[in-house]
């Protein structure tokens, strides 16, 4: 298969083009969706002229970044602990499995009571959504670590903390990428959904406002922005993951 990347760009480009044509010819009416080119223009305008844009973007970005860190680090540590206690793992298993079937934002009122309305609540909403994916992913990743590594650590008389840091963590890294990618996606969802529902600032709130005011240009511009940002983050993670896989499994 030569130049898969080229084919991919061609297909993606083709779909965008089709969408553009359908919108411009009126098959998809402007009330429902605007052409991709106009989305881009709307986004550019927002970034340049809208007085609210950078403040809201920064607000959301801070929440998302904090939520990502709060999902990944505690997620990994909790996963480590749960893996070390098999009984605990068996007990918690149903929760881990069902967590993403239930709309967890029903707990948002609870969060607000404890943390008040504001960035802390939003961050925790995002983190709450992402952390379980990281925990599950950590458990699977550690499962896949060859058992002989643990024996090597014991022969070298390395204590548990150093083993976790210098063997478990690096050994689990390739599979942890899955968890990180999910944690990123869920953090974004959690924060934006939170802002959508009950915030006083942020891009999520702008999304809700523009939807209610039938301001399609702004709305689609924001949607496009979120798409692009997440796609970039994912692309970076994907490339990093591929590099690690190549180094580890070249043979």
């Amino acid at each position, binding site marked *: 298969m030569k130049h898969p990347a080229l084919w991919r760009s061609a297909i993606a480009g083709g779909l965008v083009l089709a969408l553009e044509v359908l919108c411009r010819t009126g098959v998809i009416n402007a009330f429902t969706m605007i052409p991709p080119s106009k989305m881009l223009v709307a986004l550019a305008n927002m970034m340049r002229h809208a007085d609210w844009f950078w403040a809201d973007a920064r607000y959301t970005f801070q929440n998302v970044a904090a939520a990502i860190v709060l999902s990944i680090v505690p997620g990994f540590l909790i996963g480590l602990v749960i893996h070390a206690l098999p009984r605990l793992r068996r007990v918690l298993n149903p929760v881990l499995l069902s967590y993403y079937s239930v709309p967890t934002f029903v707990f948002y009122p609870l969060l607000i009571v404890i943390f008040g309305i504001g960035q802390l609540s939003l961050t925790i909403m995002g983190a709450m959504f992402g952390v379980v994916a990281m925990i599950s992913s950590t458990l699977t990743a550690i499962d896949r670590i*060859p058992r*002989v*590594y643990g*024996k*090597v650590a*014991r*022969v*070298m*008389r*390395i204590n548990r903390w150093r083993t976790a840091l*210098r*063997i478990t963590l*690096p*050994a689990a*890294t390739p599979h942890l990428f899955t968890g990180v990618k999910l944690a990123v996606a869920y953090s974004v969802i959690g924060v934006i959904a939170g802002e959508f529902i009950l915030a006083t600032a942020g891009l999520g709130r702008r999304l809700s406002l523009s939807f209610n005011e039938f301001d399609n240009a702004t709305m689609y511009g924001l949607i496009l922005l979120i798409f692009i940002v997440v796609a970039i983050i994912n692309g970076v993670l994907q490339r990093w993951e591929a590099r*690690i896989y190549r*180094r*580890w*499994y*070249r*043979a």
Partner: protein
Amino acid sequence: MTPDVHVTLKAVTRVYPAHSGHAAVQALGPIDFGLRRGEFVGVVGPSGCGKSTLLETVAGLAMPTTGTVTFEGAPVRHQVPDGVGVVFQEDATFPWLTVRDNVAFGLQRAGVDAAEITRRVDDAIAFMGLNAFRTAYPSQLSGGMRQRVCIARTLVLRPRLILLDEPFGALDQQTRLLMGEELLRLWRETGATVMLITHALDEAAMLSDRVAVMSSRPGRFISVLETHWPRERDSRIVSEPGFGLFTSRLWELIRDESRKALGIA
């Protein structure tokens, strides 16, 4: 107890307890044995007889159900004693580290300064013939070379007792013979006591001062044979007339046990 004895096993057994419908299984023993300081002992036996279990018990990776293991006079409990090195059957190289970092891994603890680390690592790498691959990653190396990295990593810690669990099992015959020579060289240079588990009778016969023959499960030592080979030996010993005799004696002892293990007898 003579000061000569490095490791002792007294009435060692390992029993896996009954659980979820399965009865308890006695995997090993009882075993009574003494490893003399500086000797090279090979352990052979049919598959499933508990050779690996034996090694893990001696290393301190697992506690015997009954009996005691002592190393340098002190009992071995659920912790690997200082001065013991183990080379495992599976590939235990860390894929995220270069060969050099792999070898240096165990040394990076408090108390060993950087210059000393570099010296020992360089020596071990040179000794195992890995100089050309210092900056390579394990994924770029063959199976045999990765085992050499594992051996170098063990070497660097100056173990007084080296345990090897079928380290060359995954390699082809020729490579195995050559790796065996490397092992002998290492043994002579370090003066360590070595215990090698293997399923290959010729390998055990070539490398060992004594060969312990295990029965099928639960594994006990049926017999311990002395080879009387000179210390300065290499793979060419296979062409000695005594070699063939020795190996056939081993097979004589094992054959029935192997058949039992396979369920034929």
